[in-house]
């Protein structure tokens, strides 16, 4: 058959089935949009960071990066003096907080020189401006300027390195100046000015190096020699790898949720397409009788599927783009503590292709799948032979095998992310395989239970549920609910477990001291910004003792871990309840003694460390330590390490602290203590005083913010499932109107028919959701275990029965309510339709 004729055939059927085609389209579009939005969110996160990095480093191949706060700027001329080096440029990066009035924002103060132009990066032009040589002013990206409500020439206060300094806003940077850095919280200043502001005279934190042509390995060797084991020599874009590693949990959880959303969307589409299966079968039967061969029929079906898939994917991608803009656009706050990155949205052709391919594939499977047996046989289209006995036992045995595999995975505590995901897949497949059997048992039970009821209502509901013609559609409805609830219960439950774990970690970390003196700013939540310890004079009887706390980020391998130097004098220098392998009391004793460190399990795993083993910490002054215990990652995905504060000072070769703890004298409240400390610091100090309670609150808020995206996607999945089930059921009910009319001719009332439709919907949706919830709880335990052992997050597992029941009930109620509205209209059909 000619293509034009296939199209004509499609067109004539479309007129008759527009509603059903639109439902199918909606289903696929929902799946594609969620998949697309999640893909965009993920690629944007790492992509925008990579672009920013590339924009800065330009042609540079290597970076010479300080392990602590910085190294002497004379190192730059030494690097430039190396024989293989073509060009080099140094920068100073210091974490700071910018204030204007009551508005404040964490920024990365970057000191640069006109040398930067030599790197030829995307942002080079701005560095070559003449003003950089000797002005004493800051340049801020325009969005940041607006956020702080600043005007050119106005003053901005910077809290940096433990004091407050006033700087002038000299330039508003446009996207044309700094490219993708425009959305990053950076403050750019001439190097000397930045050094002066941050009190880091003659210091650099990084030198970017462009080797002469063909001299790469030579330069690397020369740089390594120069670094003498105290400075990191690595690829210039190494930060991107660190970032990828750190953002992995975010990306993975988003991806996993998206897969579930896509599955729900697909089931949605599948049940919508199933509504049109009888019509397609009839069409094929007609065409076969005419003498059209299997190739023509395949073409006709393929055309159906492709039109549906392509249109739905296009709609889905447009909708997904909107989702990515408005819902998935917030960035994970916690990553800002260790990385400066933009919020650019990046849509790559790959993303579009993957999403569209998903949509078209879903459509192909949904349209061609149910027809495959007839197509393959090439014979006349007849209903599939139903051999319930054999199919049932096959379903049961394969379902049980999958379930067993899933449970084994749960018990085995997967040590690889892949195994965890595999376990989830097993559980999902087991659920889908067992669903038909459970549903059939349920209907039989219902039949038995309502035997004694004098009403047509249960009878009609039960016979509809048993109707072989609509059986597959009923299953698809139940499966949609099951998959959506499964995904949402498993992921939300694991999310809640993680949240509880993180909350306890926040409490543990904050309670090391009663009141904290720290550098201000949200980016300093983990107390990683160093400053010179101030001298604090407080009236006697308020503070019983002060202790120095030190902490910072350190790059170990491809991980940017957080290292805490905890004071030996603290009541609990090691956060309780974070131990995975080892004993807190012993670890505390060893830490106080010095030379021992608590290492997070995932990090230890990567480095091949066990308890008791020695290792050298790659700090500014490489320092040998021994592992006293293995812990969780304490909420920082790449990993964490706790050592003695004095060990830390030696390892960093500096007495700077990142917090001063005050232990309160008996009878003094945290608020009173904080007030005295504030008074002692004086108004000009760039430091902040926080009570343990306050710090805990802030940390909790930050960790919640980082995980909101999960909640939002879960909600979307549930909403999509509700629409899907309601739409599929409504479609089924709509097709049954003529039958309802005939029942009315028999003398049954609209009310009775409506109640039977409601009962049927409630059984189908309710059972699907309940089964989903049950398997979801298994999935939750699997995910929570995987989170602990794979990523090392602190997870507090507790069975989320209440949450499961709630989402189950909510989805069932809302879907049944929507179906009820349609059912009402269907049941009120004119009885006369029932007589020819």
């Amino acid at each position: 058959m000619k293509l034009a004729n296939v199209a004509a055939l499609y067109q004539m059927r479309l007129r008759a089935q527009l509603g059903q085609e639109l439902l199918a389209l909606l289903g696929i579009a929902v799946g594609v949009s969620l998949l697309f939005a999640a893909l965009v969110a993920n690629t944007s996160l790492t992509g925008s960071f990579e672009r920013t990095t590339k924009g800065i480093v330009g042609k540079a191949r290597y970076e010479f990066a300080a392990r602590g706060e910085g190294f002497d700027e004379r190192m730059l001329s030494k690097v430039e003096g190396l024989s293989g080096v073509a060009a080099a440029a140094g920068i100073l990066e210091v974490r700071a907080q910018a204030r204007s009035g009551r508005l404040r924002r964490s920024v990365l103060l970057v000191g640069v020189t006109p040398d930067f132009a030599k790197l030829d990066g995307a942002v080079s032009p701005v560095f070559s401006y003449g003003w950089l040589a000797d002005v004493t002013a800051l340049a801020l990206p325009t969005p940041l300027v607006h956020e702080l409500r600043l005007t050119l020439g106005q003053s901005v206060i910077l809290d940096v390195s433990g004091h407050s300094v006033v700087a002038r806003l000299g330039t508003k940077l446009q996207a044309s100046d700094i490219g993708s850095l425009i959305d990053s919280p950076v403050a750019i200043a001439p190097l000397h000015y930045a050094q002066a502001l941050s009190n880091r005279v003659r210091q650099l934190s990084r030198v970017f190096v462009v080797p002469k042509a063909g001299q790469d390995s030579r330069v690397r060797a020369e740089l390594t020699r120069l670094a003498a084991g105290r400075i990191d020599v690595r690829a210039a874009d190494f930060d991107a790898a660190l970032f990828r590693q750190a953002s992995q949990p975010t990306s993975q959880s988003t991806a996993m949720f998206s897969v579930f959303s896509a599955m729900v969307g697909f089931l949605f589409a599948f049940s919508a397409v199933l509504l049109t299966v009888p019509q397609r079968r009839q069409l094929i039967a007609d065409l076969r009788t005419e003498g059209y061969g299997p190739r023509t029929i395949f073409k006709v079906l393929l055309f159906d599927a492709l039109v549906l898939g392509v249109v739905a994917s296009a709609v889905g991608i447009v909708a997904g783009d909107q989702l990515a803009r408005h819902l998935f656009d917030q960035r994970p706050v916690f990553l800002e503590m260790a990385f400066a990155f933009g919020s650019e949205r990046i849509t790559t052709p790959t993303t579009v292709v993957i999403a569209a391919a998903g949509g078209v594939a879903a459509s192909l499977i949904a349209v061609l799948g149910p027809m495959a047996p007839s197509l393959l046989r090439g014979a006349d289209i007849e209903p599939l032979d139903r051999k319930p006995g054999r199919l049932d036992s096959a379903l049961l045995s394969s379902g049980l095998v999958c379930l067993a595999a899933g449970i084994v995975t749960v018990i085995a505590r997967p040590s690889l992310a892949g195994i965890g995901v595999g376990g989830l897949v097993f559980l999902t497949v087991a659920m889908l395989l067992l669903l038909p059997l459970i549903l059939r048992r349920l209907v039989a039970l219902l039949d038995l239970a309502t035997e004694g009821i004098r009403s047509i209502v249960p009878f009609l509901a039960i016979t509809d549920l048993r109707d072989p013609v609509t059986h597959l559609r009923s299953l698809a409805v139940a499966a949609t609910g099951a998959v959506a609830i499964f995904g949402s219960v498993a992921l939300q439950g694991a999310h809640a477990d993680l949240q509880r774990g993180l909350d306890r970690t926040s409490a543990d970390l904050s309670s090391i001291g009663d009141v904290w003196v720290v550098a201000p700013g949200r980016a300093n939540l983990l107390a990683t910004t160093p400053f010179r310890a101030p001298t604090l004079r407080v009236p006697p009887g308020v503070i019983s003792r002060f202790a120095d706390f030190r902490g910072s980020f350190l790059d170990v391998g491809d991980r940017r871990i957080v290292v805490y130097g905890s004071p030996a004098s603290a009541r609990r220098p090691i956060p309780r309840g974070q131990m995975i392998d080892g004993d807190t009391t012993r670890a505390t004793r060893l830490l106080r003694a010095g030379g021992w460190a608590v290492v997070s399990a995932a990090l230890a795993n990567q480095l091949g460390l066990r308890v008791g083993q020695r290792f050298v910490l790659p700090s500014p002054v490489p320092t040998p330590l021994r592992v006293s215990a293995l812990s969780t990652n304490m909420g920082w995905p790449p990993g964490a390490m706790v050592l003695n504060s004095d060990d830390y000072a030696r390892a960093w070769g500096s007495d700077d602290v990142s917090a001063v703890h005050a232990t309160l004298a008996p009878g003094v409240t945290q608020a009173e203590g904080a007030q005295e400390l504030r008074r002692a610091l004086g108004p000009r100090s760039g430091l902040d005083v926080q009570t343990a309670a306050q710090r805990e609150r802030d940390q909790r808020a930050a960790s919640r913010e980082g995980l909101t995206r999960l909640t939002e996607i879960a909600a979307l999945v549930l909403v999509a499932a509700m629409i899907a089930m309601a739409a599929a059921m409504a479609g089924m009910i709509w097709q049954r109107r003529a039958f309802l009319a005939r029942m009315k001719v028999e003398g049954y009332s609209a009310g009775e028919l409506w109640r039977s439709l409601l009962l049927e919907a409630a059984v189908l949706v309710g059972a699907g959701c309940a089964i989903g919830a049950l398997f979801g709880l298994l999935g939750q335990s699997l995910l929570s275990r995987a989170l602990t052992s794979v990523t090392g997050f602190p997870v507090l597992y507790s069975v989320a029965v209440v949450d499961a029941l709630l989402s189950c009930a909510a989805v069932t109620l809302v879907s049944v309510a929507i179906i009820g509205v349609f059912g009402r209209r269907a049941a009120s059909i004119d009885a006369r339709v029932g007589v020819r």
Partner: protein
Amino acid sequence: MSLLSVEHVGKTHQVGPYQKRVLVDVSLTMRPGDLFGVWGPQRSGKSTLLRLAAGLEAPDVGVVRFDGTDLATLRKAQRDALRLRDIGLVQGEGPQSQAFTVLDHVAVPLYKRFKPRQARGRAMAMLKKLDVAECHDARWHQLSDCEKALVGLAHGLVREPRLLLVDDPTAGLDTLQQQEVIELLRKAVVEQNVAVLMTSSMLAAVTEAHESFTLSDGRLLPVTDASRPGGAVIELRRGSDQQRG
């Protein structure tokens, strides 16, 4: 030379657990311009006979030849092509697909040969010829029994077949309407030189054909065969329907 020849054909269907002998040693020869009628009650094998003649089913024993060629020796695709072009099969139930309008239904057989516009044009012309053009936009289930019969014929004839197989076109029609349908078939036989094999559950309808048969326990017997006494054939001769009225 014969157009359709059915030679000693037998066919058994599996009905639930038991086997039903639908056709037993059935033979039949048709030339262009023949109009044959087969009378028989429902499920007596009339439709099976037509499906065998259309190459939709293969006989268990015996041979079905179209134009001298054993249909069983053709490839499936060849049999398909034959049906699309030379053999029009008009089934009693009309199209299974509810999506088709009458015009679409009549045009469908032409889509391999013509562009959509041409196909529809020819279909419309055929509907006009059979005087049912006014319902071209209706759906099958909205038609009256008589309109269904006529649209069915249009659908069969539109491809200009050499053999037209018509399954029970008189179902649900009153006597006048039956006459009208038979008359149309006679006309088609003469004008298009097509061979028509029709079935009916109304005896009166088939006795109008050039030759009429009945299917009884799977055997094809001539209706006028006086050598077989008794049985349904004699009792329900033409006009006997009114005996109780």
